[in-house]
């Protein structure tokens, strides 16, 4: 059963995961759900399919290895947990046990970015850099909670591994009305049209980028927002198109290290394709251990909050558009 929600409401991405998996468990008798003791929101699946649910306790490495063993035998395992631990403590299992044989294991988890006030042990800030480096891995970062369900559903037919990054997933803003966008893994979503500049973002900061675009609209600025929820494979066509259509003015905003995440993915496309930009603003986490505080406070403190996003976009727009600059 799909979850009922309405556009603009808050919804828990975690409960969407639980509901979606329980729904898919019915149609896929080879779907397994595994967790290293982070299973609170998976109870629906656990109660419906107890023999396909495995809580290994605090053992991320074994959790991913066991998932790979299940996948070798034709199953579709979903590992759900906290990303700072899954992406680093089990990184080698993800790389050598899952990606090397290209097994359909899904890694899905929370705490991507400076979220949850857990401190630096509990913030996954380098996870996307790590995951994007892995051959065969598809990497996503999802902000809209309802979209999480769609991504999981689409992943059922994927042959290889998938990484799904969420923020905290307890209370997330529904960004898109049902059917508003064609959601396809590998394709960016133009969340808002605009012509003066493009803000590329993913996950929890999509909402912030939309707020920044609203703010700038008050001055008559037309800012495009792209929800680049798939970081790998990256939608290079859309990047090229945005360069054409928004005067080569790019702002990249992400709740991840400013170097190594989406900004780096986009910079690679720009370099490889010889795309001419007139502005490239990176907004993300600097090389610091970020400390404690509420999510928004931390973003402000570290230079990628709403005000910084608005300011960076203004700077970008102030740049003369190419080709006139050449």
């Amino acid at each position, binding site marked *: 059963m799909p979850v009922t929600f309405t556009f603009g409401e808050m919804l828990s991405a975690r409960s969407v995961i639980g509901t979606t998996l329980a729904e898919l468990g019915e149609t896929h008798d080879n779907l397994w759900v595994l967790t290293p003791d982070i299973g609170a929101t998976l109870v629906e699946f656990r109660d419906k399919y107890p*023999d*396909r649910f*495995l809580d*290994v*306790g605090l*053992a991320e*490495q*074994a*959790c*991913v*290895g*066991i*998932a*790979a*063993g*299940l*996948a*070798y*035998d*034709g*199953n579709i*395992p979903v590992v759900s947990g906290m990303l700072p631990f899954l992406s680093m403590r089990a990184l*080698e*299992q993800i790389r*050598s*046990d899952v990606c*090397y*044989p*290209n097994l359909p294991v899904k890694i899905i988890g929370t705490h991507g970015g400076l979220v949850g006030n857990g401190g630096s042990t509990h913030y996954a800030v380098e996870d996307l850099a790590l995951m994007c480096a892995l051959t065969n891995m598809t990497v996503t970062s999802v902000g809209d909670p309802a979209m999480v369900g769609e991504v999981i559903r689409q992943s059922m037919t994927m042959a290889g591994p998938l990484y799904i990054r969420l923020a905290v997933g307890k209370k997330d803003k529904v960004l898109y009305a049902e059917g508003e966008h064609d959601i396809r893994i590998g394709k960016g979503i133009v969340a808002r049209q605009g012509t003066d500049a493009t803000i590329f973002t993913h996950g929890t900061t999509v909402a912030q980028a939309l707020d920044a675009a609203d703010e700038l609209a008050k001055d008559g600025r037309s800012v495009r927002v792209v929800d680049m929820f798939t970081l790998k494979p990256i939608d290079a066509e859309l990047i090229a198109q945005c360069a054409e259509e928004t005067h080569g003015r790019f702002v990249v905003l992400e709740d991840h290290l400013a170097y190594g995440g989406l900004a780096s993915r986009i910079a690679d496309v720009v370099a490889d394709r010889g795309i001419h930009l007139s502005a490239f603003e990176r907004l993300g986490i600097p090389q610091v251990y970020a400390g404690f505080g509420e999510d928004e406070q931390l973003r402000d403190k570290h230079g990628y909050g709403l005000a910084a996003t608005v300011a960076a976009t203004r700077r970008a727009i102030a740049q003369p558009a190419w080709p006139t600059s050449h």
Partner: protein
Amino acid sequence: MRDPAVWLTDDDPSVAELEDRAYELRSKLLHLCGTYEGAVHIGGDLSAADIFTALFHHGLNVDPHDISNPRRDRFVLSKGHAAVCMYIAMSMRGFFSYDGIVDTYGQLDSAYGMHPCKVQLPGVEASTGSLGHGLPLAVGMALSARHRGEQHRVVCLLGDGETGEGSVWEAAMAARSNELGNLVAFVDRNRQLMTSFAEERVVFEPYPDKWRAFGWDVVQVDGHDMGQLVGAIDALPATDSDRPTVVICETVKGKGVDFMEHNLAWHAGSLGAADLERAMAALAASRKKETV
């Protein structure tokens, strides 16, 4: 009930025949070690040669002509650096061509590399090499078999050194927690790591108690006594039992070649023509000594 009917009907070798095959396996290993110019993990290959022989020529229900049969036993080589010993043991069981292994081992585009890759070499059950990864994979396979009501066994071969990896014990705990009596671990207890002897820098003892403490049934055998290995395999509990079993095989790294035995230098290496001859002579002599 397990279903052995389709598997070893044409070939049920006696203990003496298995010993002959283990000797042949060691000879072929040394031959490869004298052919290939790079290093071969010959020490840990020789320590595990009897275990591989007992498994692939007696214990495992596998069919080289039907490598995807869902009822086959699964074998996961956690000590992936012994891949070449597995390739040759499997070639002697009809999976691969020994000549193909010797001719191409380690070369560009060969399926036979230092560590096994399931994608490049179908018939191998898992891609391994990084130590401590095999047992979690085997737990996943055993869970899958349980869930599907299949009666096959999942067998994982580990080196004792790699049981220093925490992931082994995470998996050991998961195996007991999920009552996986269809899972069997063989430990090649050769008491050597790459650069030190066991107990010298890492204290493993009381080793069997460590497994017992994790809720496993422990069987201890001389890993070079074919009769004991066969006996341990034949006495394994039914696959629907509720406790995983570990067979701790006391072995000697470099077994069969006197100058390699208990010698840290021979963790891995290559043999020049003269040393190959010397190794073959030592192997022949060791066999004579044992049969006397």
